[in-house]
């Protein structure tokens, strides 16, 4: 299998990599670019732990080929904070104890950010349905919903 050369943008930075034609974007991020914030919980799009944005659209990076990133704009958890300033969602997750083991947290934060960009004032039900593809086994989701709503409220009044 001949590798493919890909030029792309990750968290605003120009990046080049080579990958196998059947290699997922998740594997590229983790194994070739050293961005291990996106996690593989299933590899089949059922858990959301690998969530990233691709050209602004929320996707599971395990369901994207690395080769598809050519010319695209990829956003990962590593790009959420602005330098040492946490994104409001990150701060709210810490403040509201919205994580326990933390393995789902990067995916949930990326997904929640995409939600609030689309809908800055969601209902709890809308948050729950938007995040239905992000499995969390520790928290029972309750504190996650509170943290997202806390961040949404603070971002609206910012």
């Amino acid at each position, binding site marked *: 299998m001949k590798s*493919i050369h890909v030029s792309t943008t990750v968290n605003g930075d120009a990046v080049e990599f080579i990958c196998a034609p059947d290699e997922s974007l998740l594997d590229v991020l983790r194994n070739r670019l050293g961005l291990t914030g996106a996690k593989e919980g299933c590899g*089949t799009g059922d858990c959301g732990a690998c969530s990233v944005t691709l050209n602004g659209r929320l996707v599971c990076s395990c*369901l994207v*080929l690395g080769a598809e990133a050519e010319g695209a704009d990829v956003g990962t958890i590593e790009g959420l904070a602005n330098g040492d300033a946490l994104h409001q969602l990150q701060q709210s997750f810490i403040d509201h104890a919205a994580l326990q083991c933390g393995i789902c947290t990067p995916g949930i934060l990326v997904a929640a950010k995409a939600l609030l960009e689309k809908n800055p004032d969601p209902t709890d039900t809308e948050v729950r349905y938007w995040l239905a593809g992000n499995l969390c086994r520790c928290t029972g989701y309750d504190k996650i919903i509170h943290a997202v709503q806390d961040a949404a409220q603070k971002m609206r009044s910012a």
Partner: protein
Amino acid sequence: MRFAQPRTTEEAAGLIAQEAGLTRILSGGTDVMVQLKSGLVEPDLIVDIKHIPGLRAITPEDGGFRIGAAVSGAELGEHEGVRALWPGVVEGVELIGSTQVQGRATMAGNLCNGSPAADAVPGLVAANAIARIMGPDGERDCPVAEIPVGPGKTTLAKAEFLTSIFLPARPDRSGDAYLRFIPRTEMDIAVAAAAVSLTLDAAGTVTAARVALGAVAPTIRLVPAAADAILGAKLDDAAIAALMEACSAACNPIDDKRGTIEFRTQVAGVLAKRAALIAYSRAGGTV
């Protein structure tokens, strides 16, 4: 394995025709990537059709809409025009997978995957949508209902692929709806599903109807008897009972990890009833 991103449908058709081994079309990739991961298929060629102009477009046509084969669920859901004309089709597409999957999955891919439980397909069949297919000999049109033939199997020839799906115009006082049953609220494959499309006269009598069922037979099934049950009626109790009975009678499901024959048969009728009532209300009828 090779990866290609053709820029025209002709180029794509040529690539596929020339490939001696196994080809997989990649648009949203939400099924193909899972197959790759599991080792179920080992394609020799992956053809990414997303970069072909027009394939990601939603275009008004003859009062209806032509939906490019690479339009994602999220993009479709954001299109107010399609939503207004065929809300049941859109809600079916939007039920595929998670928000993340919606960012990629396509209606055309859902159809070509050939699953009897495909959420997008009952609504398309009820809508009498027409698929446009590109092949070595050029384009042809085919009703969506004629594409699936069994689990994972379609009538598409080896070198053919979908370029768009056409949702036709519809008369005033029309409505459609899709409902599926899953054990959770999200993230499951349909255990049973029903789509209903209907048109009413000024008095609220059903003058045209199509009913399609999912996950209760080897393919998505159009059920003319179920449509007949509500034709000429105002969705009174007797018509609803006849609809439910016709739907249950049309079921030929299997027992599996997702549901039993008994459950699917019973729930298909319930879903058809509920979908019919929603469609009726969308068409302006009041029960």
